[in-house]
């Protein structure tokens, strides 16, 4: 027996290829959407991995520092550091903002790390070029995704920083590249008011007779100094010694220090379960719509191709072709269309992924799932056409 589906496809290959390419682009979009979701999850995991922490200590009852804002005193790390099992504890700040370089500005997550203590949690674990921050002011390490280069002068708020090192895949949970600056500078960045506001506050402080006492020299200056500095950070990142459990250390911190502490797995749950949950539902919705559209396209094309063959199907039935053979012919065509579409889609997605501004991670398993989903959709979509073909009366071939 010959393959009726194969012969028909060879005879109308142009139609098949063009429809397949159209379907393929749609499948490519679908695979890319799945890749966008995977990229978001991976960005979140990269953020956690790269922070080098086992515990995140944040303001009490917040989901900080990534999913909610969190603010804690910058000297709390000392008491955490003194706890048994804690190897390292480091202050860190996070602020997503526009970072200027020359005439352009880049959206980035500005991370404040304790200068001169390279290797502590919060620090970029490895650099692709340059060196770590060594001075406590005006040096920066930037992710290459910012487009900055070594020696570039970048502006964060009012201050200029020199890029001394470059990292790769250091991103925030929303995929913005990171820019590391010294902690002191970063605290100032978070707190900084504009010049007018600073002047106004100084004037008002000076006018307050309680604070501006002629008999107490230096009091006004001290008050102004506390008003214009920021003793807060967003989180303390903790690395624990081997042999200790993260949860075991988190418990006393929660209890005695009136802080909230998250382990790595709790943090992952917050990032993936809460922070990107809406985005992932959004993407899921798109996937459903794309699946329906693909199914509609396959159903429509196979239906029209079958409609064009009503006469031939009647003849095939008249000369004794089994219904099964005719159904198989139609289903095979739908499957071939799906396979062409999948190949085109996979190739398109693979080539297009690097051009997306955010990370698109194409997982082989998603492709396999996608492939079987496409086959399923094609088989289901062909049922409409098969139903029609099976209804064709062989008597039609004889005519009136």
């Amino acid at each position, binding site marked *: 027996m010959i393959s009726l589906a194969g012969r028909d496809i060879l005879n109308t290959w142009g139609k098949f290829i063009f429809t397949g390419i159209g379907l393929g682009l749609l499948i490519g979009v679908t695979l890319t959407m799945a890749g966008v979701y995977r990229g978001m999850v991976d960005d979140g995991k990269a953020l956690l991995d790269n922070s080098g922490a086992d515990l995140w200590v944040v303001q009490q009852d917040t989901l900080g520092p990534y999913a909610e804002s969190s603010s804690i005193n910058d000297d709390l790390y000392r008491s955490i550091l003194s706890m048994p099992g804690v190897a390292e504890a480091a202050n860190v700040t996070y602020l997503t903002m526009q970072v200027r370089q020359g005439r352009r500005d880049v959206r980035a997550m500005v991370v404040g790390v304790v200068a001169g203590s390279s290797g502590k949690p919060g620090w970029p674990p490895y650099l692709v070029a340059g060196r770590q921050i060594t001075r406590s002011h005006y040096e920066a390490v930037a992710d290459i995704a910012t487009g900055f280069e070594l020696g570039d002068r970048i502006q964060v708020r009012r201050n200029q920083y020199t890029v001394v090192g470059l990292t790769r895949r250091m991103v925030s949970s929303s995929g913005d590249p990171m820019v590391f600056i010294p902690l002191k500078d970063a605290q100032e960045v978070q707190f900084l008011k504009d010049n007018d506001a600073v002047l106004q506050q100084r004037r008002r402080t000076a006018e307050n007779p309680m604070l501006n006492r002629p008999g107490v020299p230096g009091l006004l200056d001290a008050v102004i100094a506390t008003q214009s500095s920021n003793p807060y950070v967003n989180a303390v990142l903790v690395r624990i010694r081997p042999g200790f459990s993260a949860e075991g250390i988190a418990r006393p911190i929660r209890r005695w220090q009136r802080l909230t502490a998250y382990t790595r797995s709790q943090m992952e749950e917050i990032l993936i379960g809460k922070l990107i949950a809406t985005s992932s539902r959004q993407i899921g919705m798109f996937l459903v719509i794309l699946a329906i559209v693909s199914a509609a396209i396959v159903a429509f094309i196979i239906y029209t191709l079958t409609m064009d063959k009503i006469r031939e199907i009647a003849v095939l039935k008249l000369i*004794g*072709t089994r219904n099964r053979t005719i159904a198989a012919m139609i289903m095979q065509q739908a499957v071939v269309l799906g396979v062409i579409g999948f190949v085109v889609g996979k190739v398109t997605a693979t080539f297009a992924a690097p051009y997306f501004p955010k990370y698109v991670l194409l997982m082989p398993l998603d492709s396999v799932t996608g492939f079987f989903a496409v086959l399923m959709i094609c088989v289901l979509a062909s049922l409409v056409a098969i139903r029609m073909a099976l209804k064709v009366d062989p*008597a039609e071939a004889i005519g009136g």
Partner: protein
Amino acid sequence: MNKGIVIEGMRKRYGTGDTAVDALKKVDMQVEPGEVVGLIGPSGSGKSTLLKSLGAVIDPSAGRMMLGGEVIYDEGWKAPDLRALRRDKIGFVFQAPYLIPFLDVTDNVALLPMLAGLPNGEARQRALDLLTALDVQHRARAMPSQLSGGEQQRVAIARGLVNRPPVILADEPTAPLDSERAMSVIRILNDMAKKYETAIIVVTHDEKIIPTFKRIYHIRDGVTHEEVGERRGFD
């Protein structure tokens, strides 16, 4: 016993009640193997209904029918596998050739033996032999759309004959052809009838070919009559 076509007292009613149409009222026909018989009748007389009943795609309301020595219908009873019966016992030749456009000439013909389970090679060989007999072997690898009307009709005839069915039903097989081609189709049908002992019914209006039938049935208002009197027949 007649191993060709036997129809006795066949009736066919479409619909029920007030709207019922008696398309066939009394049909009696006999076609012996090796015979080519004409069926002539005005429009609406029941020719297509008769062909469909013979072709086992509609069920007659009453009467008996035998094809190739096998009972197909008998007063309400019918043979169990009409699809296989169509494949093995009946060859169809239509007014339009209705070739499968995505199969080449050889496979259009070879498809039937393949459907009957013959290996591809054997089926194609059988198709080629027939195409040679019908003098279209030079177009064996062409697609139907590349053939002339006459060539297509010969391929369609080859397809009707390829399973060596005991019965061939031809519906206006010469309508689209000029008289020379029409005569050659008739010659082929007569040759094939003799060679393969096939019983052939040709439904036609075509004045050119009517004289070539040795026997003719007329059908009028669903009733058949055999034409009486000596006919010249083919050659």
